[in-house]
């Protein structure tokens, strides 16, 4: 008979990051984190919680307790589709969607996201495009994103892309913002050079 | 928002605010703030009256004359007066007083009327902090003060000018 699979599940207090909950709570919208009563409404209303390794309720509990590693490496924060159901339903008024955003940003800062995971790449591509043209181009961004994360998948998407092209729903060139593009770039540059604003 | 100290103001200056609170609503509310341990700026000093209707505009003038940098009046919400309508009387006098203060060049935020119900401990906290903040931005009220901290004679101190006579002139 094969041996039992056993795993040590104790968590020592010194393994936790006491500063983590404060860092999260300092971000906009995440301040009410500590009011959570663990009722689970967020998880129950979440359309994708069934795919999450940690339900949103557990993410809140673990964030509050300082389980930084586990939280930042969970797939939960990347599966959040920003549907805002949890935020609307939370009986304590916790803006859980904003908490998820805060955790996403921390995960990117700490490079704690899964390799080849498309969302951070998507966001970066999006940012470059907007800086260049003032607008985004879904088709191009999606193409680059797939190329960078899962090139094989691109082949499967070709029929869809062609169909969109034919229907005039995707263009190979990006419509550029008219007029003062410089102003927009200055604005974004200002945000980059004034890190204290972030 | 500038948080700089206005020119000519001592850096550690703290405004002194006299608060006239009615016994039934606002005084009770400030007790509630205490019971609920809601900390707030300690710049207000409360004088309890039975009803905001008792507050004679002269009390306010006298407080300013005596060295207060601001005066806060607290009464029951309209319709909630323990004495039916004392707060309405207060409101009428307050409106008149405001004109007078404006004519005297006293900045508007220095004298404030707030309706605070017995259950609104948090409002005492909010209003007090806000008022202290605003008056700090205005700086000290530069009426020639009759009373300043320590101006009154205490046993063992040098006797000071009899300010009571001056106060009575107003």
């Amino acid at each position: 008979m094969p041996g039992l699979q056993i795993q040590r599940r104790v968590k020592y207090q010194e393994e936790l990051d006491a500063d983590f909950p404060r860092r999260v709570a300092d971000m906009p919208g995440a301040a009410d984190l500590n009011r959570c009563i663990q009722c689970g409404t967020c998880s129950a209303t979440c359309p994708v919680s069934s795919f999450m390794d940690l339900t949103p309720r557990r993410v809140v509990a673990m964030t509050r307790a300082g389980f930084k590693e586990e939280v930042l490496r969970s797939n939960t924060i990347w599966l959040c589709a920003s549907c805002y159901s949890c935020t609307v339903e939370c009986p304590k008024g916790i803006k859980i969607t904003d908490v998820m955003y805060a955790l996403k940003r921390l995960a990117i800062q700490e490079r704690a996201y899964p390799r080849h995971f498309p969302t951070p790449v998507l966001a970066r591509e999006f940012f470059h495009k907007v800086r260049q043209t003032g607008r985004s181009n879904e088709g191009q961004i999606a193409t680059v994103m797939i190329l960078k994360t899962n090139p094989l998948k691109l082949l499967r998407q070709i029929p869809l892309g062609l169909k969109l092209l034919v229907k005039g729903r995707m263009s190979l060139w990006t419509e550029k913002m008219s007029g003062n593009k410089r102003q927009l770039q200055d604005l974004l540059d200002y945000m980059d050079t004034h890190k204290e604003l972030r | 928002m500038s948080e700089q100290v206005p020119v000519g103001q001592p850096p550690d200056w703290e405004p002194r605010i006299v608060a006239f609170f009615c016994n039934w609503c606002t005084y009770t509310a400030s007790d509630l703030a205490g019971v609920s341990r809601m900390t707030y700026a300690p710049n207000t000093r409360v004088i309890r009256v039975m009803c905001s209707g008792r507050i004679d505009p002269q009390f306010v003038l006298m407080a300013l004359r005596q060295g207060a940098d601001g005066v806060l009046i607290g009464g029951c919400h309209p319709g909630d007066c323990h004495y039916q309508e004392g707060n309405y009387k207060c409101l009428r006098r307050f409106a008149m007083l405001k004109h007078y203060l404006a004519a005297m060049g006293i900045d508007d935020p220095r004298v404030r009327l707030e309706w605070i119900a017995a259950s609104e401990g948090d409002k005492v906290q909010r209003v007090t902090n806000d008022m202290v903040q605003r008056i700090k931005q205005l700086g000290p009220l530069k009426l020639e003060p009759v009373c300043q901290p320590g101006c009154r004679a205490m046993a063992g101190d040098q006797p000071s000018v009899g300010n009571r006579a001056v106060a009575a002139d107003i």
Partner: protein
Amino acid sequence: MRFLYYPGCSLKSSGRAYEESLLAVFARLQFPLEELPEWNCCGATAYMGIDEKKAFVLAARNLALAEQHGDGQPVHLVAPCAACYLVLLKTQKYMVEYKPIGRAISDALKSVGLKYRGQVKIRHPLDVLIKEVGLERIRAAVSRPLEGMKIACYYGCQVVRPFAEFDDPHDPMSMDDLLRACGAETVDWPCKVRCCGAMLTGTVEEVGQRRSYMILHEAMRRGVDAVATACPLCQFNLECFQGPMSRRYRDQVEMSVAYFTQIVGKAMGLDERTLGMHRLFIPLRQPPALLGTSHDC
């Protein structure tokens, strides 16, 4: 009152039919929408993940530009895309609610000579149609009532929650009221505000597609002719993956998914091309009673 129109990037590409039909319907109602000149991308959801303040600043630039058109009066900015609508509202709200954000945005705007005072009212077209135009005027403009047409109104996530105030976040009715005014029957179904999978369709395909599939499945079960949407991403997710979905879930999925503005336009007798009907992958299914009349307009 001035009503400016903020298309957002999607309405210029995948959601082109939304723009075409929206402008046509508003023109027919003699309620012209002027496009906000020099607008830029709103910052959208994906951006918030990397740098929220930058996303806010992008949105705030649009608000500041719109405000300039008001000459001191409040300006209405109509944002049809759900994501744009949400980001603009969120920016407006958080600028006030979170002082550090408000300050950062103001400082950044100031650096390029802009200023935002909070004088823009951000509106969704559904809100404008119900509250400003009014159902009476809409009813009067209907020349070909959609009798016999059964529609499931799909509001999606970000139109009615969490910031919007024009409709109920759990059981919105504005689109239902609108389409009923056009003579259609709308069904009470439980998916009105359940998520379509949003960005996940592109990132974690199996999760995203399952969401869309479940919604379409329920729509088919309720026996509707079409699903009406108010968001370019919802429309894309629900319409463009029906083939892969059918294969993945071994269930033949076929359902018309059109913008509510296309359906309203139909009732007003506007022609197919004006409404961007040719851009749909699956033609708008119509009951036989209506088919006969669609040629002569």
